[in-house]
Every structure is written in structure tokens, then in C-alpha cells.
């Protein structure tokens, strides 16, 4: 079937979220920093024009930030998640066939739409902007890989006005010529280097590459990319992405942590959050991994992890915390400055598909009732119930110096108007 796909991608998403509630930031250089205010994860166009790259460590360009009065924000993930949900909700009125690809991107199936695609793209763009305040770009084409390219050009070409339709377009060749092969979806730096050596520099070069050679060098995924560039769809819309196989909660600490007591608090908090996430998804886990690591930049480095199996797949926070703390004791070494810890849960199954165990010593019904009660209280959010092991003060907590208010999810942080 000849499908038509659109990629809707939010422009400078985190920066745009901040601007919706703080319009003074319009037309000013703005960056959003990662966890711990470490490096740049979102840049306004003004910052891009200064040549400051994505991922740059904030401390390296402190002078530039001051000199150009670049407004700096910590990541406000609560706000970004809520705004993302609103963007996706507004997209659902254009077609029910949507694949939410990331926090700020979605593929839409536009096959069977009778409005000219370019016009439809403009309607999508204007609607999302009006409803949510978030500017988006729309790339329309026959394959996902081509929509990525169309979207990139829609963002950068002033003529496109945010929408580029490459469906059966005479300009496809010209578009592919303008895209460096490293920017093609699925091609990383390593692959691009090999391609460059073979004289393949643009997306157009790659679309004309010999299939046999590509298969030998890069396998079937490489072949798919070439076909996609030629307009033959190999990656259909995934509306029900395969259910999660694993789940992770990990954070960088706000400052180095040395003692097992503080580390235990952090691991317990992550284990507790992981348990909540499991129950939100009505899942249970069979395998738990805990890891701790020092910073890559210190002299005495240490990384270790420990994996343990649950006797019966579980989503009981108490059990997860207990096992996580046991695992932590096994890998903790004194005398290191730890920078990050995490809890990973694997072998996830739907909670109603859990296999019983003859020798199971836990009262599963009782534990389930307790978890429901705790989640119900925490859902109301006034004074959440926490496991004692998490600690109260959380001195290891991630550092957010320039955090904006949770404008859309907290009564006491709503935007103010006068």
C-alpha cells in the first residue's frame, strides 16, 4: 500500500515549553540544561545561530552565557511531560493513527486524507501552536526516513514555513542532496565514516548505493534505510509499540555521595519509584539490577552492578526495596565518590500473568492491597507516603538551580496574570 506519513516534531521543545508561560523569553537566547544543570539539552534558534552545540557542558561556556545574556533553565520534566501530552492530544484529532515516537515527535498516518498534504500540514501546525503554544514542524513523505528529512528541511528553510511535503514531489532529489548522510535516520557517526570513505556523502548518494554492497557492510537495517530513501516503506507505523521489556530509574546525584547510608536512601527511593512505575503499567518484574558508579572525571573510578531474581514476579515496593538494598550491599565499596545510582527492572510481565510459585512465602493479596492503598494516597499528592528507607531529607537529590514553576500540574505554581 502507498501510505503517506507525517512527522510532527516540536521545535526546540523544552525551550518552547518555557516560553509558553514566560513570554518575555520570546526572541531571546534561551537554553535548558540536563539533570544537575550539566549540559545543554535544548537551544533556542538564537543560541543555535551563535554556534553553541547541543550537549555542550554548561561550565565550559559560562562566559559566553554571561556575555550574550543567555537565559538558562534547569530541566522541568514535569512541565515538559504535561506539555507533550497536550501536543499529542491535539494531534489525535487529525488522525487516530499515531505513533508517539518521543517526548516531542510523533508519526501520523495521513493516507486517505483528501485535503492537499501541504495544506493539511499547515492546519496541524497552526492548531498545535494555538492550542498548546508549542511551535512544531511537519515533514510529509511516503516513508519514515523521508519524513525525517522533510521535517529537517521544513525547520531550516524559511520558504517552507514549517511544513514540507515530499510525497511524489519532483524536489525529492534536491532535498536528499541537501542532507548529509550522517543526518539520515538510523545512520550514526560510525556508519557515516565508513560511507564517506566509500564516497557517499549525502542522503542522495546513499539512496543510489548498491544494495548488495550495503547489505554486506551494514546488514538488513542498512538495506531498509536505502529502500526508505527510495520511497519504499520498511518501517510501518507502530501504534501499539511492543510492551515494555524493562524499566529503569536512575539519576545523577546533586553532589558526590560516599556513605552507604546515603546511597541506600537513594537506591531505596529509586526502587520505590520503580515499583510505582510497574504498578502504573499493571506490570510485575522478575529480575532486578542495581548499579552504582563514580564520575568519569575523578581519579578513583568504580562501577559495579548486581542482578538478582525475584522468586515470583512482583511489583511490591517493599520487596523491591529490600532486594535492591541487599544488592547494593554486595557492590558498595568504601572510599569512592559516587555520582550516580540506578535500579533496573527486567523480565516484565502483566501483573495478571504472573506465574505462582509453590514455595512463595509472601501473602500476595495482602501486599497488593497495601500497594493500592499507598498509591491511592500518593495519587492525591498532599503528603505522600514514603518508605522509611528512602530517607526524608534526600541530600543526594539532583540539583536544579534554575528550575521554572510546574505551571500546569501544581495549584501553587500556576502562571500569574494581573
Amino acid at each position, binding site marked *: 500500500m502507498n501510505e503517506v506519513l507525517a512527522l510532527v516534531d516540536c521545535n526546540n521543545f523544552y525551550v518552547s515549553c518555557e516560553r509558553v508561560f514566560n513570554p518575555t523569553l520570546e526572541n531571546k537566547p534561551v537554553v535548558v540544561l540536563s539533570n544537575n544543570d550539566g549540559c545543554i539539552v535544548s537551544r533556542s534558534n538564537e543560541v543555535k545561530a551563535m554556534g553553541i552545540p547541543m550537549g555542550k557542558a554548561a561550565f565550559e561556556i559560562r562566559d559566553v552565557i554571561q556575555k550574550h545574556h543567555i537565559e538558562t533553565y534547569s530541566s522541568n520534566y514535569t512541565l515538559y511531560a504535561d506539555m507533550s501530552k497536550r*501536543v499529542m492530544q491535539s494531534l489525535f484529532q487529525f488522525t487516530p493513527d499515531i505513533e508517539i515516537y518521543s517526548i516531542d515527535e510523533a508519526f501520523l498516518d495521513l493516507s486517505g486524507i483528501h485535503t492537499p498534504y501541504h495544506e493539511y500540514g499547515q492546519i496541524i501546525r497552526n492548531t498545535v501552536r*494555538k492550542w498548546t503554544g508549542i511551535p512544531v514542524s511537519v515533514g510529509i513523505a511516503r516513508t519514515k526516513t523521508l519524513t525525517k528529512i522533510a521535517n529537517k528541511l521544513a525547520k531550516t528553510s524559511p520558504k517552507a514555513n514549517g511544513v514540507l511535503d515530499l510525497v511524489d514531489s519532483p524536489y525529492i532529489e534536491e532535498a536528499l542532496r541537501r542532507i548529509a548522510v550522517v543526518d539520515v535516520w538510523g545512520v550514526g557517526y560510525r556508519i557515516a565514516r565508513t560511507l564517506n570513505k566509500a564516497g557517499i556523502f549525502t542522503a542522495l548518494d546513499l539512496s543510489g548505493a548498491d544494495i548488495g554492497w550495503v547489505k554486506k557492510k551494514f546488514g538488513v537495517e542498512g538495506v531498509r534505510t536505502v529502500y526508505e530513501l527510495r520511497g519504499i516503506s520498511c518501517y510501518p507505523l507502530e501504534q501499539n509499540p511492543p510492551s515494555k521489556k524493562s524499566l529503569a530509574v536512575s539519576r545523577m546525584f546533586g553532589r558526590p555521595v560516599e556513605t552507604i547510608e546515603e546511597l541506600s536512601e537513594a537506591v531505596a527511593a529509586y526502587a520505590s519509584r520503580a515499583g510505582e512505575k510497574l504498578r502504573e503499567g499493571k506490570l510485575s518484574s522478575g529480575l532486578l539490577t542495581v548499579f552504582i558508579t563514580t564520575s568519569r572525571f575523578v581519579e578513583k573510578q568504580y562501577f559495579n552492578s548486581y542482578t538478582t531474581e525475584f522468586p515470583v514476579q512482583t511489583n511490591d515496593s517493599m520487596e523491591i526495596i529490600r532486594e535492591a538494598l541487599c544488592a547494593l550491599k554486595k557492590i558498595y565499596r568504601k572510599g569512592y565518590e559516587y555520582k550516580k545510582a540506578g535500579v533496573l527492572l527486567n523480565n516484565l510481565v502483566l501483573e495478571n500473568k504472573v506465574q505462582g510459585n509453590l514455595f512463595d512465602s509472601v501473602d500476595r493479596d495482602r501486599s497488593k492491597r497495601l500497594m493500592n492503598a499507598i498509591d491511592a494516597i500518593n495519587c492525591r499528592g498532599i503528603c505522600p507516603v514514603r518508605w522509611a528507607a528512602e530517607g526524608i531529607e534526600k541530600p543526594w537529590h539532583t540539583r536544579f538551580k534554575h528550575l521554572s514553576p510546574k505551571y500546569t500540574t501544581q*495549584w501553587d505554581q500556576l502562571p*500569574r*496574570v*494581573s
Partner: protein
Amino acid sequence: MKIETIYKPDLSTLRELPYFEAKVPAGFPSPAADYEENQLDLNTHLIKNPAATFFVRVSGDSMIGAGIHDGDLLIVDRAIDPKDKNVVIAVIDGELTVKRIRIRRQKITLEAENINYASKEVREEADFQVWGVVTNVIHSL
């Protein structure tokens, strides 16, 4: 003031299944099902378009004449096209403000509802944008 009808509020978010369903023989539809009314939900009553609806907090008394007080909560729908006399959240020179918008021919004015505040004509060169239309005020007594 006369109250015409009193509706029963929905206080039963944690409600179990309605009692009659348990008594119905398996596979046979309940004759009462057709008469069960929907409970009243303020969210669906006040919010037509959740993706585009935001809450904002008022500070100051410039709109007191419209029944909007300091500290009140406003429900703002960004999807609605602003019409003459709507109360709107506007962005003017980077600042969020709540005012009554007047749209007459080519002229846009933002009117306060308090004699202590002057109306503001939006000049063409001004950095101006309607952020959303206010649909409801929630005022605590």
C-alpha cells in the same frame, strides 16, 4: 436569587459497581441500565478541550467589575477564537494580563474593569498576542 434545580454532585469517585448489576442473571441486560443517569463531573462541565485548557492565578484587582478577584483561579481555553467583549489572557510586551478585549474594525483595545485602571489601545507595533480566552472564574468564598 432563585435556585431552580439542585443536581446531585458526584461524590463517589471510589464508587463500587451499582448495586443492581450484581443481581442481574448472567448475560441478561439490566432493565435499569437505561435509566441510570450520568453523574455530574465538574471537569467535563468546565473543560471542553483538555489539551488546550490551562489554569491561571489572578493577582490584582483590575478586573473586579467582571467578578474576577485577587487570587481567583481562571479557566483558560486557548482553542477558542477571541471575539469582541471576551475576557482574555493577553501577552503584551512579554507580560501576561487578563483584560476584556474590544475588537472594533481594525482597532484592538484591552479594557480593565476597575475605574482605577486605564484601558490600553494595542498599537500596531506592539508585541501583542491573545494567549487564551477565559471561560470561567473559580472564586472561593
